[in-house]
């Protein structure tokens, strides 16, 4: 099986290049791309990429696979056309090969205050939530921050310092809709500028690539309705 993998070591390479690999894949085996890449790393130990859980839970191995962002560890080789072209997530600075600098992505995440804020008296035991209130967090809390969505979003490419991006906005909505959070109005006020939310043009690249099957566009729509309700 043929592979074409993006290589770049800023210390020694003047510019990035694609390296061709060939791998014997035993008949009938359906390994994941990550397994194949670990075998390629045996061929060339300098090949660098991140991974940890190897089961789609940690969000470390987001990369561009045949032009579409995804997690290598849950992408079966059988689902890919050869040669398999692997590149780093687009739009972020490359540290080395497939390892990108995620600072910008995390900064946006930090901006939306990804934690519960409550100003009322703490209850004696715990803050209760009805099953219905809890159900509202489904489809939001599952995000693993793999950045596949934000780095496939043109609005995030152009303004990564100003547009929160699909992942951050999905998380923003997760806290806006949480019945235990009392900071809803301040959170909305923070988002009501020309960039943070409104740079979303509804292209839905984010929905297309999310390996967890989440829908950031829908969450962004909900935030927009909340802003509308608050401002009109």
């Amino acid at each position, binding site marked *: 099986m043929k592979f074409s993998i993006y290589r770049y070591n800023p210390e020694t390479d003047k510019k990035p290049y694609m390296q061709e690999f060939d791998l014997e894949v035993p008949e009938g085996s359906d390994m994941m791309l990550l397994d194949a890449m670990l075998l390629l790393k045996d061929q060339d130990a300098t090949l660098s990429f991140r991974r940890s859980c190897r089961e789609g839970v940690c969000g470390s191995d987001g990369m561009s696979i045949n032009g579409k962002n995804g997690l290598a560890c849950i992408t079966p080789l059988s689902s890919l056309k050869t040669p398999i072209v692997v590149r780093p997530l687009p739009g972020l600075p490359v540290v080395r090969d497939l390892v990108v600098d995620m600072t910008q992505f995390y900064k946006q995440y930090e901006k939306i205050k990804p934690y519960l804020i409550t100003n009322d008296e703490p209850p004696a035991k715990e803050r209760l939530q009805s099953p219905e209130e809890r159900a509202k967090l489904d489809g939001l809390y599952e995000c693993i921050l793999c950045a596949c969505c934000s780095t496939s979003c*043109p*609005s995030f490419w*152009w*303004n990564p310092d*100003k547009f929160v991006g699909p992942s951050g906005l999905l998380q923003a909505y997760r806290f806006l809709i949480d019945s235990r959070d009392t900071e809803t109005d301040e959170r909305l*006020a*923070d*988002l*009501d*500028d*020309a*960039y*943070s*939310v*409104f*740079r979303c043009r509804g292209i839905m690249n984010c929905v297309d690539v999310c390996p967890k099957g989440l829908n950031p566009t829908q969450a962004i729509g909900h935030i*927009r309705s909340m*802003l*509308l309700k608050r*401002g*009109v």
Partner: protein
Amino acid sequence: MVATVTSLGRSGLHDWIIQRLSAVIMLAYTLYLTYFVISTGDVTAAAWQALFATTFMKVFSLLALGSIVMHAWIGLWIVSTDYMPKLAIRMAFQAFVIIMCLALMIWGIQILWSI
């Protein structure tokens, strides 16, 4: 919160609402003009003049013109902040758009006034 100075509205929501509202007005205006042209058959200069002489049409035209100007300002401002990373180019472009928008508005008022 990201601060912006050259955007038209005060907030993202503000721009968003203006963008949608102005689109509806422009659509209504286009449909009305199309209806006029089709139903009149022979559009003479006199018929055209008579149409724009009514207060209704003057107000409607001004509204449509205002909508075009605001719509263009917001839209082009967004395009410039997406695709013109160079500050000097972005500023020059935005200044050009804003001046053109204001000039068009004044020119339009002046034309409608003279009918």
